[in-house]
């Protein structure tokens, strides 16, 4: 059973998004995603200042099994990337919703983000279990 914090939003591509008080958003991949990928060996991060549309490839996470794209759940400007991941990509495995965050962005249009609430994401996970 993967962990699912109630205060976050989620995407079909297994990213999570947290709306911060200052209007920015923090993005990472879910516990389910890190568990499916297995031990991560490498994370490719976007450049700070990059302008992304919702659905753009934002980062690449590579594990011993596979390399996988991480998509921007919302359009916006990259404010900060988690540079600790360069040396410690396994932080995503050990703490996907905390130290394993990937990108902080200033979103353009949160109303049109590709996200869902925890209940909808749980349903998606349940449907994958079948």
């Amino acid at each position, binding site marked *: 059973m993967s962990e699912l914090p109630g205060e976050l939003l989620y995407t079909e591509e297994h990213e999570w998004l947290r709306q911060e008080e200052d209007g920015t958003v923090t993005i990472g991949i879910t516990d389910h995603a890190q568990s499916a990928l297995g031990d991560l*060996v*490498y994370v490719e991060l976007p450049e700070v200042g990059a302008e992304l549309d919702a659905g753009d490839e934002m980062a690449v996470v590579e594990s*011993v*099994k596979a*390399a*996988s794209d991480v998509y921007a759940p919302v359009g916006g400007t990259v404010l900060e990337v988690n540079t600790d991941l360069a040396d410690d990509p396994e932080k995503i495995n050990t703490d996907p919703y905390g130290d394993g965050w990937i990108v902080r962005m200033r979103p353009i249009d949160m109303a049109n983000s590709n996200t869902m609430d925890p209940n909808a994401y749980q349903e998606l996970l349940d449907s994958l*279990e079948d």
Partner: protein
Amino acid sequence: MTEKLIFEKSRPGRWAHAQAPAAAAAGNIPAQFLRQDRPLLPEVSELQVVRHYTRLSQLNFSIDTNFYPLGSCTMKYNPRACNALAMLPGLLNRHPLGPVSHGQGFLACMYELQEMLKAVTGMRAVSLTPMAGAQGELAGVAMIRAYHVARGDHERNEIIVPDAAHGTNPATATMCGCVVRELSTGADGDVDIEALRHAVGPKTAGIMLTNPSTLGVFERRIIEIRKIVNEAGGLLYYDGANLNAILGKVRPGDMEFDVIHMNLHKTFSTPHGGGGPGSGAVGVGKRLQPFLPIPVVGRSDVDGSYHWLTEKDLPQSIGRLSGFMGNAGVLLRAYVYMRMVGRDGMRRIGEFATLNANYLQARLRAAGFEPAFPERRASHEFIITLKTMARTLHVTAMDVAKALLDEGLHAPTTYFPLLVPECLLIEPTETETREALDRFADAMIAIAERAKSDPASVQGAPYKLPVRRLDDVKAARNLDLAYRPESRGEL
């Protein structure tokens, strides 16, 4: 037990005749080009060298020693005759820069190989020049690009790739300056036709398809797919990874593919694996013929002699991919193999590759294993998913793969394709006997039983190999292949 590196067996002053370089060879090299320090080479006796490498080869899994059902890799037996004939002195000693008149025998073999590949794939022309599957793909997509550009159709830069494809497909498209549009797969394993209809448009350069796909099933709606892509102005690329399944039965040319790459090292049985020399020969239909990579072997209408076709003959060619034409040794082995099996043998390859896969799938299914596409017949390979075992017993596909090694069986492909959770992609190939297939099925069944009665014993496998579970993460992140004397203490 840790195997020592050959460097660790080194003792100053020890040497071997067989490996010693001839001192006289350096006599004519100007002093400024000679290195100052001696190279770091192990100092060992000839017998030590023989024992060291013989031991290592015995620790290895290979098709010569073990059942090797690595899916999508077609690790079939490479007949010894192919090696023996490809290594005839006249072929081995041919110099690639020698005059064409001195290499007519070799060129005749290559010309006939081109002709046989045309016949078996139904394509109009073949170039043997790509050095490996990935280079064949690169050549194929480069030809598609060249075709559109030659028509002034500069805007077509989208390549459609199903999500089940080999990772090399999107990589190739990107390397050729194209944008990849991923296509989803339906629940039955076929491409989602509705998604395809939405994906095509005025920017569509082409689609890359593997048929049978990496899901081990034949793309049944291929004619419809071709129509949709062609009507949008795109071309069809056939990835030959799974050509073995349809050999002698279905021809990509008849499915009206515009270009195909063939992994001669897989389908036509030359030794491969470990990144060694390969061959990614490409075949094309009418539209792409002018763009074939050079050189190609031509035959004179006047006297039947053979010669190289170059830029002069194919001015629109995408060019050369290497200094010479492919890996001659691999091409010769493929030639001998095709001549040995002949037209009827070619059909039996496809039939037995498919029969073996379906037999194994049926046996595993009857024992309770879960095929990824239960309603589909397997092609030459099939997928089982161990997601239930992983969920209920916490024994994963990787654990089962490791346990197979203890049984002296090479593991199938694990965790590919990515669409299927906890999957094993199993390709027995046509060269295995029923006894070998049964032994594999029995081992799988025994491991599944053990996963129920004693899951920890499967999670801890392998037990009988020189090394146990390796640290994959460390291996990927701290790759260290160079021996340094100062690192000796750490080993």
